[in-house]
């Protein structure tokens, strides 16, 4: 019995050390790739509903769809309008051929607008549990998100998969154009373990050193 608890403690310690190591390498990481890449990148795009959907689809309109395929759009099951927007963008902007394809996956919403933070903990945990088998199956190589809450469980799972040597998923978070002086909650959380946190206003770059600023994106 003592042996089991010792083993568990040991495992938690090792995983914790590995997580810290990954976080350090993320924080130290260089922004441009060292080697050229020729094979496609399996891409997950997390859809946050409403204006967030419009913003992220606009960001992706000039994506070279051959390089970023297949594409998986992950959205909240209660989101009524985003699906149409995704289909429209895919039909208008991208070619479809073999691997160059897309699919839409729905997960429970982590937090609804105005939902109390206390109950949000439970709904987020539920979203996390449902997302886990999806992520283990799909294994995207890159996750692109722009908040809000929908992206956190997915990104946490991706991070844990990286810690446990299952994948090497990169997370690219783009803060909304609305955020001029303050970072969203998702942004603050992802500052810890996202590979890139893009901000669209210089004041944010000044305030949060880890962010990347390349000017307005939309």
């Amino acid at each position, binding site marked *: 019995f003592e042996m089991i608890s010792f083993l568990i403690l040991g495992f938690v310690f090792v995983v914790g050390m590995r997580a810290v190591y990954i976080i350090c390498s993320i924080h130290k990481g260089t922004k441009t790739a*060292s080697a*050229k*890449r020729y094979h496609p990148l399996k891409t997950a795009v997390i859809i946050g509903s409403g204006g967030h959907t419009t*913003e992220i689809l*606009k960001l992706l309109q*000039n994506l*070279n769809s051959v390089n970023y395929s297949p594409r998986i759009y992950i959205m909240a099951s209660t989101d009524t309008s985003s699906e149409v927007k995704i289909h429209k963008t895919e039909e208008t902007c991208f070619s479809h051929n073999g691997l160059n394809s897309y699919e839409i996956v729905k997960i429970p919403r982590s937090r609804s607008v105005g939902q109390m933070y206390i109950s949000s903990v439970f709904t987020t945990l539920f979203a996390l549990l449902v997302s886990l088998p999806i992520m283990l199956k799909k294994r995207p190589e890159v996750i692109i998100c722009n908040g809000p809450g929908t992206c956190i469980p997915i990104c946490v799972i991706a991070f844990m998969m990286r810690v446990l040597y299952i994948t090497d998923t990169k997370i690219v978070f783009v803060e909304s*154009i609305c955020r001029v*002086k303050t970072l969203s909650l998702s942004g603050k959380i992802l500052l810890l373990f996202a590979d890139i946190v893009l901000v669209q206003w210089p004041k944010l770059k000044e305030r949060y050193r880890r962010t990347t600023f390349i000017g307005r994106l*939309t």
Partner: protein
Amino acid sequence: MQIGHGTIVPPSGLICDVQVEYFRFKDSVTEDIQRADLIISHAGAGSCLEVLSARKPLLVVINEELMNNHQLELAQQLHEDRHVHYTTCTNLEHTLQHMDLQTLEPLPTVDSHKFTNFLDSIFGFQSQECHTSITSFMPTQM
């Protein structure tokens, strides 16, 4: 006038020599924006940016009851950069009477390839612009 889910329904028709029309939702307000000389809007980013990219004068109205909402940040910054005028519900009438639309400056457009080029550079893909310059270089090398 777009009223969304609003409970207050404005009178329509000719009111004080002004033709007033309203609708709740439209798939696209692009046409309405194009036909307008002035747009008055809430501080939603999508609305503001759509109007500014159409190069139309914009007056942003802040809902004082939602003072802590993050819509304010963008409206304030756009106002500081002289792209929009901005007011509150209480001051709307006064602002309409006294604002000078000539002082507004257009919002610079954004290169829509910026984000995707950035992604390409992180992952090592040749960005599309890079590709064009390489193909134009090759004939002289041969």
